């Protein structure tokens, strides 16, 4: 019998718990396979090795960790695992960091980066999303935690009315948007929290459907000043990430956003 516990890495074989991988390979290959299959990839395996030894991620002792990592890889290969190439890439990365740390740093450069820095950054980033993926599993979900009440109404069709936009509205410039938004804000009691990344997706989606979109169209006056700022930040962020281009045919003419062309 092989049982696994999803929270901890705990494998029971015939009732006895296997927590460590012995140096010799006398444990049943099936049990080892269960342990190894639990890893989501090389970063996950590294995080496990680090956690097991209670080491701080930002100060990984690269030599022992590399040694252990390679041991795991060898075990996987001995079990004829179809080893994802990603694991081998990581082994090479670790070996490279190890060798760079062994070479004495002759040039006294203040800017000299810790050879581990990039790996640590990736581990922290992965850890962050791994934690989030566990948190989102707790968020109430339809038909597990929440249940919608809905009768059956045949031939029920929603009428869709598109909002009409006047040309004159389009030609306002950004400061005009802000000015209006400010006037609006005094009537706006509820403030909704707006996400820049959500807004980026929304604008990209709009551009994607129409190829180009006027700058003014991106703004929703009813959102007030905060909404305008979030939209503006989203546009700047997309330009920075090379997702869109901002174009204007001549001075003071309309500004358009379009997908980036090379």
């Amino acid at each position, binding site marked *: 019998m092989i049982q696994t516990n999803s929270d901890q890495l705990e494998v029971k074989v015939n009732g006895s718990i296997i927590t460590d991988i012995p140096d010799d390979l006398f444990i049943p290959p099936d049990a080892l396979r269960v342990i190894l299959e639990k890893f989501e990839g090389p970063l996950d395996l590294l995080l496990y090795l680090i956690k097991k030894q209670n080491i701080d991620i930002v100060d990984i002792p690269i030599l022992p960790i590399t040694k252990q990592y390679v041991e795991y890889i060898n075990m996987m290969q001995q079990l004829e695992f179809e080893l994802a190439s990603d694991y081998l890439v990581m082994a090479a990365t670790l070996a490279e960091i190890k060798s760079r740390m062994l070479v004495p740093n002759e040039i006294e450069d203040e800017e000299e980066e810790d050879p581990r820095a990039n790996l640590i950054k990736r581990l922290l980033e992965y850890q962050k999303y791994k934690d989030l993926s566990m948190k989102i599993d707790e968020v109430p979900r339809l038909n597990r935690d929440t*249940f919608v009440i809905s009768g059956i109404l045949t031939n029920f069709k929603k009428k869709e009315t598109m909002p009409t936009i006047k040309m004159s509205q389009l030609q306002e410039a950004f400061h005009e948007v802000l000015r209006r938004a400010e006037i609006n804000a005094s009537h706006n009691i509820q403030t909704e929290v707006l996400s820049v990344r959500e807004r980026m997706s929304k604008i990209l989606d709009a551009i994607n459907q129409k190829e180009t979109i006027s700058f003014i169209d991106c703004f929703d006056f009813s959102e007030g000043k905060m909404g305008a700022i979030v939209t503006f930040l989203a546009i700047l962020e997309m330009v920075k990430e090379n997702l869109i281009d901002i174009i204007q045919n001549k001075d003071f003419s309309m500004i358009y956003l379009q997908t980036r062309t090379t």
Partner: protein
Amino acid sequence: MKSEKNLELIIESALMAAHEPLSLQDIANLFDTNKPSKNQIKKVIDDLNQSFAKHSFEVIQVATGYRIQVKKGYDEWLSKLNKQASTRYSKAFLETLVIIAYKQPVTRGDIEEIRGVAVNPQIIRNLIEFEWVKVVGHKETPGKPELLATTKKFLNYFSMKSLSELPPPEEIESI
């Protein structure tokens, strides 16, 4: 007074019968004449919730509008109604989903870089099929990879109004 009573019952019936959440606009469009204002509708929804105080359900707001759902705390019993056990998503699925949700718009390459392994194409296909994720554009780098973002349907599923309601990430100070 009579017309107000009607308004409340009409809105209640619409929320009961609809399959999808109804926006304030959807509700206003139910009326050909005397369209109620958005504030009126909001007030009616508040009133409905007060009258539901002794009941097991309530009106809640999600990304695309309002819907009636069972109040919290009945899952213990209601889960028995579902013939098949509720889906458990794999770690890979959840990790891919949160990266898209928190870091959108992202390419598959971005996801691979964070997770350190190749993206399972079936996971992306499922996410798109669920309409939780959609392609919002292409990045102008070689290969023109697709940019992925979450949809309002994703927010509806998790009973959220906007992405800002996602659990906040723990602050990790990087060096």
